């Protein structure tokens, strides 16, 4: 099984303990984010024709650029029709943005006491994002999104002609 699927199982497994502690809840939320993070990177790198370069290519992704790209898609498609490719992409992008910030709190802010509901929701967000991804992975908008996770949008700027 692929690494990102394993991570998702780990995240779910942590919640299935009889008495989840704050440590298991925090680890579960963090792992749910990394499952989605690695799914997206895996999918993007799969587009690279030479497999021997994919591991190094995967290291080029930055959380901040992925946030920016995902937030744009979230804003663009939030009112898309149910079950459309755009709506599925919205679910992936929204989950990514939400889980990324939750991971920050889960990993670094010990003052935050997580509830089981919050951790459950994080796992379901990741699981739903995986399903949405499967539904749209070959769509053009999905492939454009993957590209934007790595490459900043550089709008072509018209030349500025000075006054003479």
């Amino acid at each position, binding site marked *: 099984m692929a690494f990102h699927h394993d991570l998702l199982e780990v995240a779910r497994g942590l919640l299935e303990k009889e008495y989840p502690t704050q440590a298991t809840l925090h680890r579960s939320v963090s792992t749910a984010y990394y499952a989605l993070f690695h799914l997206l990177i895996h999918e993007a790198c799969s587009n690279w024709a030479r497999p021997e370069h994919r591991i190094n290519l995967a290291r080029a992704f930055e959380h901040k650029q992925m946030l920016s790209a995902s937030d744009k898609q979230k804003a663009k498609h939030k*009112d898309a029709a149910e079950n459309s490719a755009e709506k599925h992409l919205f679910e992936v992008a*929204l989950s990514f943005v*939400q889980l990324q910030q939750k991971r920050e709190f889960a990993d670094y802010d010990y003052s935050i*006491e997580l*509830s*089981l*509901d*919050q951790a459950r*929701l994080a796992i379901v*967000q990741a699981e739903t994002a995986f399903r949405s991804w499967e539904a749209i992975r070959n769509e053009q908008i999905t492939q454009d999104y993957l590209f934007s996770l790595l490459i900043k949008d550089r709008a072509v700027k018209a030349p500025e002609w000075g006054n003479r």
Partner: protein
Amino acid sequence: MALTTSSSVQEQEIDSAVHRVESKFAKEVDHIRYSLGENWVGAPSIFFRVVVRDEASRGDHELYELSNKVSISLMNEAKTDENGLYAYFDFRSMSEQAKLKDPAWA
């Protein structure tokens, strides 16, 4: 930090937006709180904390569907994207809040 006029106006607009969403989802949502701050990259952000009724949070799927609807509604009503705010949403049930007694969620 002192509030400027514009941020005070913005908070009033957000308060009204939150009330509208609370009314819209009154059957499922008990109350919504929020705070303004920065996300992990230091960008202006709004953090919503939604306390949902226990009946609405029992199943994973129900909780997820509700969280999506409430999140979209809050984004649209509070115009978070238009106001340049990253919007973040957290949900917990009333019974879990009763156990944790977190004042930020009360």
